[in-house]
């Protein structure tokens, strides 16, 4: 009976993945080798032109921008998220679920709506500027909106929970006795953190970084709303190809490259997980 259940669930899942993930991606792959058509969407000419066009320095720069921004986002999230998760794990056990729920509460509001909220915070006559003027730090509103920092703030705000949650679960599982043993052996705070806490929570750091980095590469509306449609990112570029320029094959080629990049990162992640598992085995 259980076996039937298992088989049917697996079948259903495979069917789901095949129809909604595999086939669409194969279609994108196929489109990326075809040509653009002015009045339709594609014409049936086969070639690698779309991929070659991507090597234009302008588009390489778009990819470079996006990678840089995603990296900055990940590092900022890590810098903010690690202490956050660490202190979260120090609270009473009965309080922790409530605090975790509070981390998740913002998800009840759509991220686009929250991005608009950030826009009104950062606006020239927004809360941040008004507060700074009221304190007397500045006389004229500072241009916060439509800058790269605005995009970075938005990205970090939206993606921070994805960093906190895996970090929290890694830090919570951390066996205190190791830290205590290190303290007994005379290690200072910094050494305890660097040689004991950090290595033991590294899987959480990596998982969080992957969870932040990958969406950061693809998000386009934050750059649109907070960046003022300047400094194109890969996500915006893809959206423009499909919606505005209607160059589907070119857009498809660019998204294949993006998928390839993500695949690379994921395999690096899987490899690192395997290494951790091997290490654990050896220690056991």
């Amino acid at each position, binding site marked *: 009976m259980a076996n039937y259940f298992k088989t049917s669930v697996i079948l259903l899942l495979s069917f789901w993945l095949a129809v909604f993930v595999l086939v669409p991606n194969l279609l994108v792959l196929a489109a990326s080798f075809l040509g*653009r058509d*002015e*009045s339709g*969407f594609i014409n049936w000419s086969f070639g690698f032109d779309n991929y070659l066009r991507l090597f234009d320095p*302008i*588009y390489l*720069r*778009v990819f470079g921008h996006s990678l840089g921004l995603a990296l900055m986002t990940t590092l900022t999230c890590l810098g903010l998220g690690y202490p956050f998760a660490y202190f979260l794990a120090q609270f009473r056990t009965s309080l922790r*679920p*409530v605090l*975790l*729920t509070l981390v998740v509460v913002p998800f*009840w*509001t*759509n991220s*686009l*709506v929250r991005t*608009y909220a950030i826009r009104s915070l950062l*606006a*020239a*006559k*927004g809360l941040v500027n008004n507060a700074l003027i009221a304190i007397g730090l500045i006389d004229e*509103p500072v*241009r916060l*909106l*439509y800058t790269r920092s605005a995009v970075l703030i938005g990205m970090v705000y939206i993606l921070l929970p994805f960093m906190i949650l895996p970090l929290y679960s890694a830090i919570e599982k951390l066996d205190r006795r190791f830290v205590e043993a290190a303290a007994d052996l005379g290690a200072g705070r910094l050494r305890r953190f660097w040689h004991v806490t950090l290595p033991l929570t590294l899987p959480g750091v990596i998982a969080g970084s992957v969870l932040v980095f990958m969406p950061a590469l693809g998000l386009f*509306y934050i750059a*649109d*709303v907070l*960046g*003022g*449609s*300047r400094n*194109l990112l890969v996500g915006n*570029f893809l*959206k*423009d190809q*499909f*919606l*505005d*320029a*209607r*160059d589907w094959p070119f857009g498809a080629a660019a998204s294949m490259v993006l998928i390839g990049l993500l695949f690379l990162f994921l395999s690096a992640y899987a490899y690192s997980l395997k290494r951790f598992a091997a290490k654990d085995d050896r220690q056991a």
Partner: protein
Amino acid sequence: MFVAAEMRQFQQIFTRPFGLAKGSLCKRVERECKDRHTGMDCRYPEHREVNLGHPPWRLGSGNPCRNDGQNLKLTTLTGGIDLRWFRLIAPLLILSLCCTIVHGKEQEIRLFGWSDYLVQEVLDRFTLETGIRVIYTTYESNESMYAKLKLLDGGGYDLAIPSTYFIDKMRKEGMLQPIDKDKLPHYKNLDPRQLDKPFDPGNHYSIPYLWGTTGIGVYTAKFELRTIQTWADLWKPMFLGRLLLPNDMREVFHVAFRVLGFSGNTTDPAQIRSAYALLKKLLPNVRLFNSDAADVLFVTGEADAGVIWNGAAHRIQREEPAFRYVYPAEGVIIWMDSLVIPKNAPHAELAHRLIDFLLRPDIAKLSSEKVGSATPNAEAVKLLSPELRNDTTVYPSDEVLAKGEYQTDIGASITIYTEYWEKLKAE
């Protein structure tokens, strides 16, 4: 902007009542009470309503009937919103749902237009008078409107409002259906000077809705008016990081063409390339590209000068008297947005009714007043207050119009434009 339309959709989703979940949870609570107490009643029946059995994150004691103050209240789940009202209006909701199912097919019209372009008051009045519900979806650029309609093969929407050159293009590609003027008794109100234009001779496919100009808007509290009288002035170093440009490829290129002395509709690749080179020099001055809510950006102090549609300029002037709209000496951009019915519109009949409604003088007057653009409706112009009729921002003088230029379809050259436009944005 695409985002504005999406926002509206999300708002609809998020204001949808959460109440349905409540009924099911309450039932569950009741059943569990009986199981546990072998049919006996709970000790605190009044708490049954608000207690949850097992919230997903397992807060509370787990016994739904015992009120020990730890059980999660349902209102916590819904963010503090009390859902008792739902029981009261549930029958009404179900009734209205049934009505929509029964009459849905004839009671709804899907409109695809620029944001802030159809006045909600006008649409509400239409619904009130005819009982037809209007679903208004917005787009930020002609290109994205075209791409969506193309994808839907001229279906999905009943009415769209493309600009001149896109009407030309869509008409030639057979994406539009002819408009039956016998169904439009108010068609006669239109000013003949605004009809029979080259992008749609005889107006077989398009009915003018509003027309206007694209010029320079400047906040005179920040910049002196005399320093900015031509398109070329936008390149002055004093505007470093201050300008707002429309997120519209044709408009931005048009500006550069006029500075270089070319036609705004050029198809010469060399001219397009030199316009791109010129625009690249303008980029340091550009703060953002936006076509969604230019007026809001000026009023909230995000932009101090820029290329702007006269309708938005008129709306800003109502709030900021120090704001001025300038007709650049090189010649202004003139545009006209017309109502068209896509080829496979599901409710073409209703679309005709809405077009005729919009052509009614009192309604056209209202649209022009609220949007701040000029109406092509001669009868409506007569009804306008002299203030608005003589406002040169909205109704420019004949000399200005004589120097201005419409945008027309540029055919396959659009790919050259697109390529340079992308390079410009990626810069």
